[in-house]
């Protein structure tokens, strides 16, 4: 682990870490260029981002999924990979205009947080890491779904609406897997899988809201733009759960 400090003091390491995450954001923005140049920039962004995450993991000695800086960076990385696979479909080329700037914004949000290099003894279990991993992958699905839904609402191109639905269905399943792993972790760590706090309420709201969208899409009066707007709002609800609870709505820290 010491090797990956490259002989830098804490300040130097913080600067290096900052620029290592800023670099992929620059590449992702340049990926908006048309043709091979854009694809090359996107590839460079993915590689730089992977190196940034791997560097954090090597420094910490565990999966870098325990604090906001690393979690949000990983969410952006997962969204970038997802974007790569979806953008291979020629019919969904407009996604770049929404997804790439959003991925950059997510990276900028990550950069606002300090890196934290410690971990609670309660988190040192595979269940916690599985929970975090699936949680932020599901957020990436919601982010890309929001981009697809926004384009559908603006353009009316139904290809985007269908893909938005697929992203939200898969995101919901991944969120469920994450909540399952999180419940097992929380039970093993704290002796309960549920607490009556604002955080638990909003995690439930996120899960229920995706469920609401999936059922709304099956209802004739809501199929189309109304359901697509709800699908876009899923990402907003998910973001509020992560950022808003504890700041806008107070939530007591976990017992112990």
């Amino acid at each position, binding site marked *: 682990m010491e090797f990956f400090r490259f002989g830098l003091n804490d300040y130097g390491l913080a600067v290096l870490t900052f620029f290592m995450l800023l670099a992929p954001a620059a590449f992702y923005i340049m990926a908006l260029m048309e043709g091979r140049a854009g694809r090359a920039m996107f590839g460079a962004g993915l590689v730089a981002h992977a190196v940034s995450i791997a560097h954090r993991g090597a420094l910490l000695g565990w999966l870098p999924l325990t604090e906001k800086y690393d979690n949000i960076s990983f969410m952006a990385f997962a969204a970038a990979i997802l974007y790569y696979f979806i953008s291979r479909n020629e019919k969904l080329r407009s996604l770049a205009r929404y997804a790439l700037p959003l991925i950059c914004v997510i990276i900028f949000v990550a950069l606002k947080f300090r890196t934290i*290099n*410690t*971990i*609670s*003894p*309660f*988190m*040192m*279990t595979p*269940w*916690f890491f599985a929970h975090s991993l699936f949680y932020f992958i599901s957020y990436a699905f919601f982010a890309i779904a929001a981009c697809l839904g926004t384009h559908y609402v603006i353009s009316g191109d139904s290809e985007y609406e269908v893909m938005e639905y697929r992203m939200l*269905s*898969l995101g919901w*399943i991944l969120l*469920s*897997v994450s*909540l*399952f792993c999180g*419940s*097992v*972790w929380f*039970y*093993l*760590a*704290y*002796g*309960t*899988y*549920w*607490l*009556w*706090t*604002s955080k638990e*309420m*909003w995690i*439930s*709201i996120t899960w*229920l*809201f995706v*469920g*609401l969208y999936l*059922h*709304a899409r*099956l*209802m004739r009066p809501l199929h189309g733009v109304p359901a697509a707007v709800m699908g876009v709002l899923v990402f907003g609800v998910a973001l509020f759960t992560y950022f808003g*609870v504890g700041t806008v*709505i*107070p*939530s*007591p820290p976990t*017992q*112990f």
Partner: protein
Amino acid sequence: MKKLWDILISLNTVFALFALTIALCLLGSVMLPTHLEFFSGIDDSPLFQWLAEAGAPGLTWWVYALVASVALLALSTVACTVDALSRRSVRGLLHKLSPQVMHLGVLMVMLAHLLTAVFGMRADVQVAKGTRGEVAPGIEVLVSEVSAEVNEAGTSTRWLAELVLYREGKVIARRALVPAQPVFIDGLGLFFGTFNEGDDNRAPSATIRVTHDPGAKWALAGGILVVLGGIGFIYSRRS
């Protein structure tokens, strides 16, 4: 009866129940921190016991409404599952069954919450090194050793408590307890709560959380079904 069944399986009903449950969770997320002192004990005893003792219907009505809303959602889920299974599917058995397996998993998680809310137990026991504490009637725990590993930054990285468990004064087990790796014995779960360093006058101690949670196994089984149903759903779409 037919009319009631049609209401239960109606998408409008499911949508309304989802929306109602979301609204009640939203209200709860505001009520809980606004009346922090009042709700501070809600996690320390079974939910229905706490509700009966807490009184103050003006503050707790939303919990009752949330329980009722979730119960109605469960009822609607059962009806929709039965209805879906009775229909012919054009997209294969896996596509037909996967959402229903997820529904069943969600129902089991709801049942788990109900069991825990009625029959659960939780208590925190602080036991100093070299002393015994009672964790349940007739069952005592001796903390023979308790320690913390600290890194260069001075942060605890690992806590350890060596336990000797007694029933009616006789040793029944010796176990090591660390965070997130509980010890289960006689239907009780023992969890590492906090490590207290101690000082010149007090020996170091560990706070041990003792739980009896009859819903935990149901929640685990329900969670597995939700995951399996989800995987089946993805697989059926691919094929």
